[in-house]
């Protein structure tokens, strides 16, 4: 499914300074029973967000109205564990378009790029600066500039560059996806398949 183009995103951010946020926390398995990809945002971080009786847990950041925005800032090793793309769908469906961390699990990073969420990997020191900036002012804005590959804390002007390969960057800025690309090279694939021993 092609998705929205991503170029420059300016937004406040939601801080979640927890390490090893795994995809079972992002969306627990019991909510994976749908056969469609929408509606998962309601159950994003379900067990951290709601009590067993479905009342919101007051101390969880998504229930704190002072924090909002399209950027989620997580601790080290974000998105580990299960390959469920539902985790990325839930983050997208909730309204985030960018996740910032000092380290991402591989499958989560791929899944995010494939559906139009930009994973921005920053240094541990810069991550710390972001957390401190949000702590000082929950409304503080970050600017994620994909063409320039930079992330900036607007209040202080502090900025850092991030990595993304040229191919994925081109896809994200244009809203293309891999399936479009692969469909255009079917002959080449068929020729390869003809030589396979399997």
């Amino acid at each position, binding site marked *: 499914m092609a998705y929205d183009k991503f170029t420059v995103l300016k937004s406040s951010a939601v801080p979640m300074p927890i390490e090893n946020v795994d995809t079972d926390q992002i969306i627990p398995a019991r909510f*994976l029973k749908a*056969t469609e990809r929408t509606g998962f945002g309601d159950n994003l971080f379900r067990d951290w967000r709601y009590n067993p009786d479905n009342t919101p847990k007051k101390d969880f950041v998504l229930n704190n109205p002072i924090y909002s925005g399209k950027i989620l800032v997580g601790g080290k090793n974000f998105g580990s564990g299960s*390959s*469920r793309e539902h985790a990325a769908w839930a983050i997208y469906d909730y309204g985030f378009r960018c996740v910032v961390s000092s380290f991402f699990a591989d499958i989560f990073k791929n899944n995010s790029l494939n559906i139009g969420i930009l994973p921005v990997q920053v240094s541990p020191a810069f991550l710390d600066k972001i957390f401190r900036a949000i702590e000082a002012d929950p409304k503080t804005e970050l600017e994620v500039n994909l063409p320039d590959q930079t992330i900036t804390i607007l209040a202080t002007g502090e900025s850092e560059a991030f990595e993304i390969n040229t*191919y994925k960057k081109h896809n994200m800025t244009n809203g293309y996806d891999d399936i479009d690309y692969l469909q255009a090279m079917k002959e080449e694939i068929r020729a390869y398949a003809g030589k396979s021993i399997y």
Partner: protein
Amino acid sequence: MSQSPATLFDKVWDSHVVRKIEDGPDILFIDRHFIHEVTSPVAFLGLESRHLKVMFPEKTFATADHNTPTINQHLPVQDPLSANQLKALEVNAGKYGISHWGLGNPKNGIVHVVGPENGITLPGMTIVCGDSHTSTHGAFGAIAFGIGTSEVEMVLSSQCIMQPKPKKMRINVNGRIGKGITPKDVVLYIISRLTAAGATGYFVEFAGEVFEQMSMEGRMTVCNMSIEMGARGGMIAPDETTFNYIKGREKAPKGAAWDKALAYWKTLKTEAGATFDLEHHFEAADIEPMITYGTNPGMGMGITQHIPLAQASGGSKASYEKSLGYMGFHEDESMLGKKVDYVFIGSCTNGRIEDFRAFASIVKNRKKADHVTAWIVPGSHIVEQQIKEEGILDILTAAGFQLRQPGCSACLAMNDDKIPAGKYAVSTSNRNFEGRQGPGARTMLASPLVAAAAAVTGVVTDPRTLMAE
């Protein structure tokens, strides 16, 4: 430039690259694609909305496992949402001509158990599935890894996926493992040393005497857990053990095709002098039965040790305290003697026949502890059949255990097999994340022997104390 010696991983990867994108991913041809009911429906919806076909339906295999009940499988599935997912898989498989081993099929079972036991998984292949434990198939010298649903759609429509080539790591374990130490302990030990993110960005080759001496099932247990140290996958070079395991299985090559394949498979090993981006060395003698005390698989320790102090954990103190708080444990405590409420043996990590043999070796002539609820779940119908034929079922029954029907079950608690909040489970599965086995459930990962010892004593117990000299 002279050709530098190749690793096993390079050989398999490079031979599957259909095209390289400059400053982008490689386009990798996929030999085998497994699908199940949870991560495939949206991929099929995607195909439909783009009006695409499945390019090579004979290279994809469907089985229902994640969301299936483990009792009364002959009855209609009660939960309407689960039933709907199972139906969607059946309909999609039928519509696109994909072989489907659904609920009730004698070949049905957990995807990573079924693939190898039917000879679908072969050395030198590229194998993907919308499930992170696809790394299991690496035990055969295949490149196997988990993918997301968008990638499932890619593979269905083009038999390819796009992947940047990961870095290479080799993990060597030499020496002989001691009595009561299983492949699960070996891999939990490695993860505890590397941490849950210690291999992120890498593809791992496991090498050394310990893996050379290991059975295929043991190798599958090890490769299965490579994802739990963050690795893209793990693999072990195929050898006689591998070839003997495959020979004669239903989908394995036969006759001249076998000879041709075998000649190729024998070339699949890392050459002397090949280099890795990172290499680790461990000694078998340092490994004892393992158990986890926290909420990621890297938080494991030898069963006779004490829970490490926060500063020794490598992570932040706040995350460490959150984790121990969830488990109700404290720094520097012993785990031995802690009460156990549930025991789960099964999953694609430890749901094969050798695991049930190990479990039975401890519970034989003993009784299940009264307060323990035990879920004994074979990985497939074929395993279930073996359990019956080998007399293991009789041992289990005499000890007060019941055998359930195959499926993922309490590994991810998507069906009714959920550990209640606050309860302690010793589980042979692969993840101890918060709520993984049910909201509020507290999971301790361990081997089938440790699980058996907990089941009969009702507390965390070193299985070596229950084993004959």
